[in-house]
C-alpha cells in the first residue's frame, strides 16, 4: 500500500503540503521562464546547441518543409525559445511539486537480450584514409558494429526503455552520459540518454572529427571538434529512437543516440541490462536494436525487488 501514498493524500496536512508544493511549482516555473527565454536568444547564445533547441519542432510532411521551416526559423526560433522555455520551466516546476520515487519504494528491471541465430558478418573497416586513425588499430583490424554478440548469444548495444506507463513528470537523470571518439570510432557505439539529461562528447584522437547527428524530432546539427578540443555538452529536447550520428570526415564512424524519457538500460556484451529507479506499476518496455528494430513487453514492477525481463531477437 505504501507506494500509493504519493498519489492519494491520506491526511489533511498531507493534502495541504501537496497544494503548497503545487503552488511553489507554478511560481518557480514563472521565475525560471524569463531568464531561460533571455539566455537562449539565438543571436547571443554562446553555445549553438542551446539555440538549436529552438528549432527542434519541425513538421516533416513535404520534402520542402525543411526549407520552409528554415525560412522563418529565425523569428520562429526567437518566439519558440520563449515558448519552449516557459513550457520546460512549467514542467520543471511540476516535477518539483511531485516528488520522485524514493529509493525504498523504487522498482528495478533486470534481464538479458539474446540473439537467436547467427550474427551477420561484420565488414572490416579500412582507415587508411587517415593515417592517424589507421595507426590506432595496427594490431587488430576493426569491423562494423551493427550486431555485436557476446558469450552464449548475448546481444550487445540493445537499448531497453519504458515506452508506456510513465507519468512523464520524472526529473531527467542528473549524471551526464558520455560519447567518446577514440581511434576514429565512437565509444559506446550505442548511447542512450534521457530527455534533458546532459551528454558529453569528447575527442581523444589526433584527428579532427565532426559530430553530425541526423535528428528529425530534435535539432539536426553539425559541429566539428578539434584534436584536444573542449568537450561538447549537449542535451536533447524530445524523445527520438534512434538519432544516427556520423562523422563525415571519417565516413565509417557510426553511433546511435537513443533519446528516451525516464529510466533506460543498454545491454552489455553478455546481453544483460538493468533499469533502475522505476516507480512500481505497469509498464510497456521496448527494446531497440539498430539492425533488428524494436520489441515490446508488458511488465509489472513491484517496489523493492527486481523484475526479470528477457528479450530475444531473431537473426535475419
Amino acid at each position, binding site marked *: 500500500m505504501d507506494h500509493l501514498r504519493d498519489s492519494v493524500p491520506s491526511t489533511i496536512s498531507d493534502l495541504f503540503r501537496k497544494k503548497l508544493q503545487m503552488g511553489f511549482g507554478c511560481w518557480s516555473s514563472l521565475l525560471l521562464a524569463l531568464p531561460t527565454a533571455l539566455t537562449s536568444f539565438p543571436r547571443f547564445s554562446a553555445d549553438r546547441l542551446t539555440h538549436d533547441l529552438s528549432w527542434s519542432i519541425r513538421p516533416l510532411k513535404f520534402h520542402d518543409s525543411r526549407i520552409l521551416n528554415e525560412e522563418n526559423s529565425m523569428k520562429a526560433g526567437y518566439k519558440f525559445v520563449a515558448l519552449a522555455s516557459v513550457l520546460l520551466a512549467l514542467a520543471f516546476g511540476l516535477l518539483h511539486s511531485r516528488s520522485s520515487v524514493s529509493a525504498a519504494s523504487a522498482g528495478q528491471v533486470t534481464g538479458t537480450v539474446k540473439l537467436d541465430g547467427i550474427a551477420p558478418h561484420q565488414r572490416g573497416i*579500412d582507415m587508411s584514409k587517415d593515417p592517424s586513425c589507421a595507426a590506432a588499430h595496427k594490431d587488430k583490424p576493426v569491423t562494423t558494429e551493427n550486431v555485436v554478440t557476446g558469450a552464449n548469444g548475448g546481444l550487445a548495444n540493445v537499448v531497453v526503455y519504458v515506452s508506456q506507463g510513465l507519468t512523464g513528470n520524472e526529473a531527467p537523470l542528473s549524471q551526464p552520459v558520455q560519447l567518446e571518439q577514440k581511434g576514429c570510432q565512437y565509444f559506446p557505439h550505442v548511447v542512450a540518454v534521457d530527455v534533458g539529461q546532459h551528454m558529453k562528447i569528447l575527442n581523444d584522437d589526433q584527428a579532427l572529427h565532426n559530430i553530425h547527428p541526423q535528428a528529425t524530432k530534435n535539432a539536426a546539427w553539425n559541429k566539428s571538434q578539434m584534436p584536444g578540443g573542449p568537450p561538447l555538452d549537449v542535451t536533447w529536447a524530445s524523445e527520438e529512437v534512434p538519432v544516427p550520428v556520423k562523422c*563525415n570526415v571519417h565516413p565509417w564512424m*557510426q553511433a546511435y543516440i537513443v533519446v528516451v524519457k525516464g529510466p533506460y538500460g543498454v545491454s552489455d556484451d553478455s546481453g544483460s541490462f538493468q533499469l533502475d529507479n522505476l516507480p512500481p506499476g505497469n509498464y510497456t518496455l521496448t527494446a531497440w536494436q539498430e539492425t533488428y528494430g524494436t520489441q515490446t513487453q508488458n511488465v509489472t514492477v513491484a517496489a523493492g525487488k527486481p523484475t526479470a525481463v528477457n528479450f530475444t531477437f531473431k537473426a535475419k
Partner: protein
Amino acid sequence: MPGKVFAVVVVIVTLAIAYCVIAHVWWMPVDISVHGPNIDRQIEETLFGAGILFIAGQLVLAAFSFLYGDSKGTRKMKSFPGGAKPLIIFACVVVGIEILVLSFVGSKAWGSVYFTPPDPSSVRIDVQAGQFAFYFRYPGPDGKFGPLHPELISEGTQNFFGLDTDHDPDSKDDIVTAQLAIPVNKPVLLTLHSKDMGHSFDVRELRVQQDFVPGIVIPIHFTATQTGRFEIVCTQLCGLGHYNMKAYIQVLSQPDYDNWLKQQAAMQ
C-alpha cells in the same frame, strides 16, 4: 633617385623569380603516367615562352624608369619612335605566334588525355566520392559492376556505393575498397561518381585532375608507368572536411595487384 631605386628593385625581384623557376625551388613531382610527359613539356614550353615575355616586360619597365626617372624636367620630351604601331605589331605578332604554338601543341597534350578513347582492355574501377572520402569498387571475378541504389547507401554499414548484394547477382562479388590499387603499365579506366557534392580526383604524379560532378558519371583513363604509393586529394571545395579528403593510390606489379585484390575480397 626613386626611378633608379624602382628599377633596381624590379630587377632584383625579376631575377629572384627567374632563379626560383630555373633552380626548381618549387617544382612538379616525378611523373608516373604515359600522358604526363606531354603535359610537363607543355608546362615547360609555357614557362619558357611566358618567362621570356615576363623578364622582357619587367626589364623594359626597369630600364625606362631608370633612364627617364630622374630628369629635372628641363629636357625636351621624346615620344616613342613610330608611336604605338610597333607596339601593336609586336603584340599581335609575337604574342600571336606564342598563342598559336601553345594552342596547337597544347591541344595535342590535352587530346592525349581526353580525346583518346579508353583502351577496351583497360582495368575498370568505379570511384565514389562523398563528404569526405573516396571509395573504390572493383567488378570482381564476373567483371560486371552491380547497379547502384542511392537509397541503400549507408556508410555506417560500409555500403558506400548503395549495392544490393541480396538481390543483384552482379553486386555480390564487387570489391569495395578505401584505397585505390592499379597494375603498373596497364591502361586504367576510372568512372567517377559523386554521391553528394562536387569533388575532384587529383593525383599530381599521374598529372590527372578531374572533378566529380554529382549527377554525371565521368570517365578518365590513364596508364601508370612506375610502382609506388601516391596520394589522391580532393581539389574541389566540398565542405568542412575538404582539406582532409584524401586516399592513397598504389601502383603495383601485376602479381602484387592480384594478391591485393584477393586480400580485399577476403575483407569484404
